[in-house]
């Protein structure tokens, strides 16, 4: 009986430690999203770094946190690009949930999938923006808008995706490894 209660308390302790690590990882994720918001506010042609940040977080975290990440990333884009609040957030929350579904059931997260999904999401966002602001109104010189604003922004987003990946992944790996090693230590004891 005493043996069973000891095992139960050690299991709870490991769970608490794991939840603490998860909380730390999520705080880091939110910080990454805020950090990615800074370069988006400079005016002119800017990368939409919230997109790669939201995607990398969605690849490694749970469903509800993915949705929250999608909402924050979308609202950041809305504010930086002066779009109606919620317009980009709807797209990113759907895309982040899709990424979570994909990574939890079909693919193993890696840099190739990360870049591919970032490209898809950024292109989708810019494509919808182009459609709604230029094509729908048959605006004169809409091609120029795509060539000189939206496409360069897409390219910069893709270039900026690499530092985002390199910034996020080591933290996550470190935290995950620590959790695993602690679990092992607990089990060993």
């Amino acid at each position, binding site marked *: 009986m005493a043996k069973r209660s000891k095992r139960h308390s050690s299991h709870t302790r490991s769970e608490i430690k794991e939840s603490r690590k998860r909380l730390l990882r999520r705080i880091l994720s939110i910080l990454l999203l805020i950090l990615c918001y800074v370069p988006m*506010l400079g*005016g002119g*042609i800017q990368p939409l770094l919230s997109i790669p940040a939201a995607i990398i977080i969605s690849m490694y975290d749970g469903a509800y946190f993915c949705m929250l990440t999608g909402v924050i990333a979308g609202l950041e884009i809305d504010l930086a690009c*002066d779009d*109606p609040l919620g317009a980009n957030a709807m797209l990113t*929350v759907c895309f982040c949930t899709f990424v979570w579904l994909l990574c939890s059931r079909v693919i193993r997260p890696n840099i190739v999938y990360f870049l591919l999904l970032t490209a898809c999401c950024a292109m989708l966002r810019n494509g919808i923006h182009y459609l709604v602001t230029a094509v729908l109104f048959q605006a004169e010189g809409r091609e120029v808008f795509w060539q000189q*604003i939206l496409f360069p922004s897409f390219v910069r987003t893709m270039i900026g995706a690499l530092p985002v990946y390199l910034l996020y992944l080591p933290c996550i790996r470190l935290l995950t490894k620590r959790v695993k090693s602690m679990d092992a230590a607990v089990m060993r004891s």
Partner: protein
Amino acid sequence: MDLHAFFKSAKFRVLLCILALLCGVMLYSVKTGTHTDLFTRMLRTASEPIQKFSASVTDETNKHLDTYFKSKAYRDENAALREEIERLNEELIGYDDALAELRALRDQLAIKEKSDGFVMSEPCRALMPVSNDPTGTFYIDQGSADGITVGAPVICSHGLIGVISELSEHSAKVTTLLSAELSVGAVDLQSGDSGIIEGSLKYSADGRTKMIYISTENTVKENDLIITSGTTGLFPRGLQIGTIEQVGIEETGLTAYAVIRPAVDLEALESVTVLLDFKGKGVANHG
């Protein structure tokens, strides 16, 4: 992938709730204007320090990068400006006499200075440039609490920048001359030909705007100075808009157009002024 299970799960229901909420926020935001609704105001206020920091970092970075990547363009521009200064200096010799004569006449007739009718706001700081927007839309740090109204012209020492398009208590959105949403009555100072300044996506990415509805029998030419005509009562007459860079005929063949290089460098704006009132405001004068 068991999608069926996902669609039946609580996660999917949460996703739908979030989407419905975001959709509601977006509709509210569209209805009230993208800048004036409560959520946007709150979020903008919260992110203002980040925005200021980001804008200053971007400015500094651009300045340094410009030195390396645009040195040839600056050298050419410098040479062109030197020539321009020489030409203007020659003209100035004649103007000095004319100016003295004009001052004497003004004194005699007691004509007020043109700017006397202007009521200007306190200098406003150009705060938040909108990213990925070719028309150079930006926000200023004063709003309705400072007496600013929607439609008020925004100017700086070089000339007209745009108008106030959205307003909240302590900030306002400025739509610039590059935007297709803004129409300004304009006149060519040299030839007297009139037209409408209306931005176009085709030119705004290069920092240019377009003057449309010019008569095909015009005499406008490159480097002519374009100023506001003041006929609509929305802008005072005589605000500098820019110079003509290129002239052409519209595809319909009915009117001509001119590509205008704005007098104001929209990328280098730091401080602007809002014209709260001026002589003839709201009085259309088509004569």
